[in-house]
């Protein structure tokens, strides 16, 4: 089976198609960040690195970066705005209100 492409494949005819419905490309090409009305922003002064936002993000468009805080290993959430749809789950779930929002400007 061919390895998955990161570019969307457009089938011109059945000759290009596999015989069954099977994913031949990743969804990376589909930049859903453009769907966003409201932009979530993480206030790292308040963030406790609990990673609840990362767990709840359905897209998922929150990545984790390994950092050291007071000699301890922590995971810092970073929002990927290429894919974040602005659904609001992260800022609803954040237990310390460390995610605030801004209207997307045009």
């Amino acid at each position, binding site marked *: *089976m061919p390895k998955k492409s990161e570019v969307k494949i457009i089938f011109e005819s059945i000759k290009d*198609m596999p015989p069954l419905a*099977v994913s031949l490309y990743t969804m990376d090409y589909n930049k859903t960040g453009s769907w966003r009305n409201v932009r979530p922003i993480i206030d790292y002064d308040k963030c406790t690195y609990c990673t609840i936002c990362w767990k709840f993000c359905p897209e998922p468009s929150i990545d984790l970066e390994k950092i050291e805080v007071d000699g301890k290993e922590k995971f810092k959430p970073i929002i990927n705005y290429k894919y974040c749809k602005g659904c609001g789950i992260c800022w609803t779930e954040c237990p310390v209100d460390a995610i605030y929002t801004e209207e997307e400007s045009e």
Partner: protein
Amino acid sequence: MRKVIIGNHALSYGAMLSRAQVIAAYPITPQTEVIELLSEMCANGELDAKFIKVESEHSAMTACVGASATGVRTFTATSAQGLALMHEVLHWAVGARTPVVMGNINRAMAPPWTIWTEQTDSLSQRDTGWMQIYCQNNQEVLDSVIQAYKVAEQVKLPAMVILAAFVLSHTSETVEMPEQEKVDEFLPPYELEYKIDPDDPHAFGGLTGPDGYFELRYIIQKAIEDAIPKWEEVGEEFGKLFGRSYGLVETYKIEDAKELIISSATVASTARSAIDYLREKGKKVGLLRIRVFRPFPAEKVKSLLSAIDKAIVIDRNISFGASGIFYQEVKAACYNEKNKPPIFGVITGLGGRDVGKKDIIDIYEYVMKQDKVESDIIWKGVRV
């Protein structure tokens, strides 16, 4: 080597000789012996397969489809209500292009509760895309399982090997057992291009919009059309290795026939003895047994019917509100032909009522007195 075995065990041996790797099944009368024997074979090491016990036929077929999609050979068997419960997943097996092979014991549908034979259970699944092979004896059951894997894996469509409840399933018959080495030569290991593989993850059967679905259906129709010559080729190749050839249809004494009796499975088998009797009486009658019902051998049927005066289709099944189902298919195949005989449709033997030689002779003699087709159903043997 010859063995005397019941039809259900012919299915089991067919799966064993084909080296089925995953078997998932749920017991139902009159299929139970199929999986009893296979589970024994798995337990005693005779068959190197994973036997998955499931809680329903729906799950049995689901397990087979899932396993088949990983690139292993799968087998299951069921009957009547069990087949009906599988219905949703039968479509899935076709759409997912998984060449599952299944035995179905033709049993009439309930209510009233019944365990005896009739073909309406499998014929109700005719539009799913499953290939359907109707067998006339236990030898053909065993041989057809092996051939079914070969065709199914080439065209990537599932196949149902079908036998009559009790008339074959529980009848002991002489069966020539194919040698394992020859079966291995005939049936190469199953290879699948698009398969579930954790090292190369893909999503299967995901949402497909109107821009793709239509083409996928077109491809399935082309694949099942490709299966028409494949069943002939594979049946001939089987004959070269094992001395028993098979095709889409089987004919008997048709050379100078003016009339043709058309039927399937064990009714067609019994019809041979009626043909012998009628031939002795000087009647020019032959037999056409439809072995492969899906894909439907329309070209064969058309050409065989072009030169005769009367055709009689005997159905052990019914599509309520229409007629016998083989009758519909034969009639539909011939409709656009210039040369076609009147085609009479007979329904008999529902719910396992015995169909004997005399019944078939009676049917023939009744039809010979008819000038034209008055009704789509001639009922034989019903007490009205």
